[in-house]
Structure formats: C-alpha cells, structure tokens
C-alpha cells in the first residue's frame, strides 16, 4: 500500500487538520468527537443541516460545509459510519433554534448511529428531523431488504436543501424538499480498480486486468455483476440506462447530470462519459440544463465513475443556481 499518509490510525485526524488549516475561513473542526462545522454556527433562526458518513469519500461531506450547503458534517473512520456522539455534538453545536435536519445515506450503520444521536439530541430538546437518501439503482429495492444505498444523489441533495435552508425556510419545508429530491434522483456506478482501505492495507476486492465491477458501492462493496472491459460508450449505456429507466424520464423533461469520479479516474475520461450521457438523453428528448462533473463522492483512489441524474423543476433549478461557498463547491460567491 503506497499512500501519502503517516500512521494509519492518524490518517483521518491529520487529513482533517490539513483541511481546517486550508479552509479555516469557512469551517472549524472539532477533534473529539470529529465534527466539521461552519465557522458562523449556530445561525440563529436557520434550519441547520447535519450530514455524516465514513471518511474516504472526500470532498463529501466536510467539503460541503459552508454557506448555502451543510452546517456540520461528521466524518467516521474510513468507510465506517460515524458514531452517535459525533452527530449529537454536531446537532447541539449548529442548532439555531429552528431545528436540525439529519441527512442520512441508507446504510444500516449510518441509520442506526444517526437514530441513536437523534434520540439523544431530542432528549435535550432539539427538534430533529431526518431524511434517508437511497438513490443507487444498482441495488434492487425491496421491502424485505436494506433497500438501496445512498450515493451520488447525496451531493445534489445537500446542495439543494442547503440553499433552501439558507433562504430561511422552516424545518417542515426543508424536510419536504429533501424527500422530493430523493424521489427524483437516481445513480449508478462502476469500478475499474479496487481501493485500499488504509487499516486493511490490501485491496478490498480483486478485479482482473480486463474486468469491470458494475453497480459498485462507494465503500468498495462488490457490485451486482462483473463483466469484461468495454468501451466508455458501452459502459456509459450500462449505467445511464437503468438510471434513466428507474427515473421514468419523459421527453421534454429537464435534468441535472452529475458524472462523478470514484477518485482515481482522471477528469478527461469523465468528459468522455458525459459526452455519451448527453447523446443518450438527447435521443430521448430530455434536456440537460445543469451539470456537475468531477470527483465529489469518491472511494479513496478507486478508478471508476458514477452517473447521477436529477429531475429538475423550476424550484430545484433555482436552488441549484443559488450561491454556495464551501471548500469543494463554490459559485455565486
């Protein structure tokens, strides 16, 4: 394992220290327990957004803390859900009296830890709502299983809901928008290589020189099928197809397309993928009116990509365009 780290056990903390040193104008970091929060927290009267998840997905979530997006993020160990004390600390810290929304990705660990935190926080009188995002169409949904994972849609959710909260909407409206976004966003990803979890030191899975894992999760969980390597356009068809179908997109609709790198895939290749997504949607008469391209929800150094499509309406488009100023996403400010 060759990584730019010191002691494995110090990786998350040292990375957070560098992050705070770099972006101290926007964020502060608490180290026990780990919480990244806005320097201006709590914002009185504003609904506060708290998200969190395992580390190794940078810039998500810490990179999305700041004006127009999250109030706090709770980084767990690499690929491991954060613990309730983190979410509780964050919730108390950013609560501005208007309530706190927990943005949770659909993993049993994340859900249970956030649940415990919400229980603790409500005991102390804070009003907490939580929403669970499950946009990964690679996982067939069912009442009897864990259901779909939360992946790329999380980034878009945090941007849109962050803008809504920044506008001064109340907890009910912010929560409703979250559910609306979750209902209108889908994703699917693939891996060309595995990643190496520092604590493990060896690749999470083995992938042959000519193999691709389709439907990979963001934690190196194996996907639904393993195929032999294909062209970028063919692979793009495999990801975009299920996403478009599951969204039930119709001619004339407007969407935001998000092509994400798993960490190790360079930007130039993402544009090759975006090119074909645009061709596919164009053939279907769907209009791409907004887009996001880059490594925003990653799996350490994994090579691969994911495609996320969000159905837009006027409000979502307006909220997407609203100013955002965080370490990882910035415009209009």
């Amino acid at each position, binding site marked *: 394992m060759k990584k730019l780290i010191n002691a494995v056990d110090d990786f998350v903390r040292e990375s957070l220290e560098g992050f705070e040193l770099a972006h101290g104008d926007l964020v502060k970091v608490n180290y026990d327990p780990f919480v990244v929060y806005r320097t201006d927290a709590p914002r009185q009267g504003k609904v506060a957004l708290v998200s969190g998840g395992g580390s190794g997905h940078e810039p998500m979530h810490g990179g999305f803390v700041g004006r127009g997006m999250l109030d706090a993020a709770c980084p767990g160990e690499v690929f491991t859900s954060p613990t309730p004390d983190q979410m509780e600390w964050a919730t108390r810290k950013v609560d501005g009296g208007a309530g706190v929304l927990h943005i949770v990705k659909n993993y049993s*660990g994340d859900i*249970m830890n956030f649940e415990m935190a919400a229980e603790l926080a409500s005991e102390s009188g804070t009003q907490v709502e939580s929403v669970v995002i499950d946009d990964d169409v690679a996982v*067939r949904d069912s009442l009897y299983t864990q259901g779909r994972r939360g992946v790329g849609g999380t980034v878009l959710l945090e941007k849109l809901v962050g803008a809504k909260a920044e506008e001064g909407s109340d907890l009910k409206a912010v929560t409703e928008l979250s559910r609306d976004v979750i209902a209108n966003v889908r994703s699917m990803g693939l891996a060309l290589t595995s990643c190496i979890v520092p604590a493990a030191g060896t690749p999470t899975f083995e992938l042959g020189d000519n193999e691709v894992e389709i439907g990979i999760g963001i934690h190196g969980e194996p996907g639904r099928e393993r195929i032999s390597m294909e062209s970028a356009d063919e692979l793009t068809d495999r990801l975009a197809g299920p996403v478009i179908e599951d969204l039930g997109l119709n001619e004339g609709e407007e969407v935001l397309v998000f092509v994400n790198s798993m960490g190790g895939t360079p930007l130039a290749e993402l544009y090759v993928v975006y090119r074909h997504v645009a061709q596919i949607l164009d053939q279907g008469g769907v209009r791409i009116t907004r887009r996001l391209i880059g490594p925003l929800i990653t799996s350490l150094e994994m090579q691969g990509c994911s495609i996320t499509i969000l159905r837009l309406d006027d409000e979502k488009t307006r909220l997407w365009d609203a100013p955002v100023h965080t370490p990882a996403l910035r415009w209009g400010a």
Partner: protein
Amino acid sequence: MFSSEQAVDWVRRTAAVIGEHATELTKLDAAIGDGDHGTNMARGFRAVLERLDGLPEGANLGAVFKAVSMALIGKVGGASGPLYGSFYLAIGRELGDATEVEDGAFAAALRAGYDSVVARGKAQLEDKTMLDALHPALAALDAALADGKDLGAALDAAEAAAREGVAATIPLIARKGRASYLGERSRDHQDPGATSSHLILGVLADVVNGR
C-alpha cells in the same frame, strides 16, 4: 452465579480474542461488505479496555456493562457499533447495581441484550446477521438451564449453537446490512457479525467454566 469480576474478565478476554481474529473478521466483511468489521470491533474493544481501567474497584454489573456499551457506541461506528452497544447497554440495565446474580437472572439479561439488538437493527432471523448466531445460542442457553444444567454447561451449549448458527449463515442471502446489496452474490459467504457474536459467547463460556 455470575459476578462483576467474571463480567470484567469476559470483556477483557473478549478484547484479546477480537484482536486475534480482527483480520479474519475483516476478510469475511471484505467478501460481502466493506472490509472493516474486524478493524471496527478491535478499535471498539481497545476503547473498552481503557474504560474498564477507569472503573472503581468492585463496580456493579450495571456499571461494567454500561461502560462497555458506551465505549463501543462511541468507537466502533458502522452497523456493529450501535448493535453491540445496545446489546451490552440492555444487559447492564437489566442487571442494575447487583455485583452478583443467579444463573437465570444472567440468562434473562442476555435475552434483554438480544431483544435490544433486534429493536435497533430490525432484522429478522435468516437475514444473515449476528442474530443468526445470537438467537440459537440463547435458545440453547435457556433450554439447558431449564434442564437443570449449570451456567457453565449451558453456556457451552450456547457456544455450540452459535457456532452452528454461524455456519448456517453461509448459504443465506443477506437481507440486512451491506451484504444485502449483493443479493444472490451474498450467498456462500459467512457473515462477519455472526462470527464475532460467536467469538464473544465462546469467551463467556470459557470464563464461566474457569477455562
């Protein structure tokens, strides 16, 4: 009878055993999960040891298990953190300020721990989770005690049942936890959480039997 000293002994030795099996647990999790179960558990039980050092001499059973649960909830993360945290939390709540309890009372406490794992995780039997090791073990424990066996013998029966439970997870298709994302592909793999549950019960049997 089960005493605070045995409780501390159980937990300390569990920490050692989890440490020894961390790599194995992580490997199992890498196959159908995200490859961190061993690391999570080892990190959690290291924190448990620190907490225990902070406990006063002769602390009661409630205090011991509460300390264990807080350490796990605060350090394990993932799915297993809240689950094992709830497990020990409920055991401690059940045993309260006693420093020694009857076999039946201890078995009832373990049952309360199990129920709270179910309440937290909302999994069912054969979802390929730790429940599939814990449930048969506690059933065997109760049955053995009902037959008039002593706690040591009953816990050996429980350990054996847990071991079978672990083996029985192999053919299952996961319906809870990360492994569930794999659907069919989760078959033919042993569940890491069931495996760690079996290890924990194994240590308990050894402690009570003075091994």
